[in-house]
């Protein structure tokens, strides 16, 4: 659905995006994570044919950038960073204007459908200037969806929204992904990315990492299992370390911290070995790394403290 080859953008000699290589599958929800100025918005602007790349290219919804940008724009929808609505016009008039620009046949029917879908039908005649931030964002999403594009770009869709409005938007995005649409999401909200995205690309001018949220956690920190022991002894480290699948062992307080590739498969072996060596195992837990840990580790080049994380 989207293939990006060596995409680079420079502004007055300053590189905003460097040599981006990526393939996004049809129906996938893909998230770009990165600090401010990392090139996320620039990337979305290039992929939606709003600005031209300095070098490299991409195919979006079957169209190559720069070859038929009008057709490309007809097949993608974009929710821009700011809702960008006409405050003096009603919600209905805002949508019908864009519906006409996209050449939709049944403008009234389509506008009604999306206003109802996003719960704005009752207030369709009111000027958008009277709407709350959440309502404006919903209307902007309706506008991006109006022509039913196969690819949808969402640039920070929940930024600045109250928790309730943000949850509504997230649920709507989850619903969209169920329809088989390809969604590319720019976000600072790591929890949102974790919940919504099939894969994540951590971008800081260059693509620093690319994988599923779970795999990224594993790649960056491994999976750390905690054995809570009633009688921690120094030799227990060696008991565990002899197994080839154990990546690292450390003991701390009454806990033995073991880094493993596949805890579900290897935990029984380790518990058995520890019991045989005389350990009294109270319980076994796992330290779960948040996506925030992964993100901070990647963008700060490995500066995150390894002790962070919540045991489950």
């Amino acid at each position, binding site marked *: 659905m989207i293939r990006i080859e060596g995409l680079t953008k420079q502004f007055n000699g300053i590189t905003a995006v460097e040599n981006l290589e990526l393939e996004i599958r049809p129906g996938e929800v893909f998230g770009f994570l990165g600090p401010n100025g990392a090139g996320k918005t620039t990337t979305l602007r290039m992929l939606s044919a709003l600005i031209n790349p300095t070098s490299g290219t991409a195919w979006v919804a079957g169209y190559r950038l720069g070859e038929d940008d009008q057709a490309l724009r007809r097949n993608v929808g974009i929710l821009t960073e700011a809702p960008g609505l*006409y405050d003096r016009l009603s919600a209905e008039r805002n949508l019908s204007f864009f519906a*006409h620009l996209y050449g939709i046949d049944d403008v009234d029917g389509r506008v009604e459908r999306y206003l109802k879908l996003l719960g704005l039908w009752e207030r369709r005649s009111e000027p958008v200037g009277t709407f709350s931030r959440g309502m404006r964002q919903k209307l902007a999403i309706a506008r991006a969806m109006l022509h039913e594009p196969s690819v949808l770009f969402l640039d920070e869709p929940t930024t600045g929204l109250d928790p309730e409005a943000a949850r509504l938007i997230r649920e709507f995005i989850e619903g969209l992904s169920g329809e088989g649409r390809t969604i590319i999401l720019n976000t600072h909200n790591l929890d949102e990315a974790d919940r919504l995205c099939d894969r994540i690309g951590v971008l800081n001018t260059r693509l620093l990492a690319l994988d599923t949220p779970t795999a990224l956690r594993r790649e960056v920190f491994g999976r750390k299992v905690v054995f809570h022991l009633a009688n921690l002894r120094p030799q227990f480290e060696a008991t565990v370390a002899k197994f080839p699948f154990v990546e690292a062992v450390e003991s701390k307080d009454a806990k033995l911290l073991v880094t493993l590739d596949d805890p579900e498969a290897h935990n029984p072996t380790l518990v058995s070995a520890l019991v045989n060596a005389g350990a009294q195992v109270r319980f076994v837990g796992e330290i779960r790394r948040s996506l925030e840990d992964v993100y901070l580790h990647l963008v700060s080049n490995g500066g995150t403290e390894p002790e962070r994380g919540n045991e489950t």
Partner: protein
Amino acid sequence: MNRVYQIVRKEWAEVFKNRLVLFTVAFLPLIAAALPLGILYLGRSSADFAADVGKDIPQGFSVLCNNLTGEECVQYFVISQFILLFMILPLAIPITIASYSIIGEKTRRTLEPLLATPITTAELLIGKGAAAVIPGVIATWLAYLVLVIGAAWMGVGMDSLLNPFWSIAVFVVGPLLALTGVSVAVIISSRATDPRTAEQTSMLVTLPILLVFFAQVAGLILIDAQIVILIALVLMAVDVALLTVAVQLFQRENILTRWK
């Protein structure tokens, strides 16, 4: 064409909800029509006033009155003084509308979603330009119609108003000036961040017309059909140059990444 029409409809729906724009579009033409009619009325009702005006008619103008009576010549002179107001109208109205329309898109950050649609830059510029030019030209023509009807009602000879001099000024120079106004507004808007700053700066373009107006009032020059034709020719060249610059500045990437 449908997208151009949609842009025009949207612009009018939005811009005419702005009181300042409405005031400019409605009030300026009213002044332009009412002022000469008021002076003509005074001239008809007061022989002294007409005689005073008659004394002020420059020598050169009398040549244009060769077949007219003394009173008709005074009327012709009075009306001629106001032709420049009818040149300022199609310049001022589009500048006001275009300043609000373009800077408005910029300040509300509505340009990016608009540019993300399949609309071409030409369609967008033509739509925005037409939305600004059409009200300016129509308002000028309506004001001219009011002037013609009012003058006829007061018994002013139609030769004074329905001659090539006025026709070229209203029907040729008017639309050309409207185009100048829009081009200037687009150029200024690409640098300004506030609609009022853009409008005020763009209004400087009316200065040459005002200078000609004051020069005529002071008797320094005499505007006749030849001068109006000359203005039209100069404007054609100026419009081509300004439009080229405006289109150059109105590049999608410039708009999105450099307009601050």
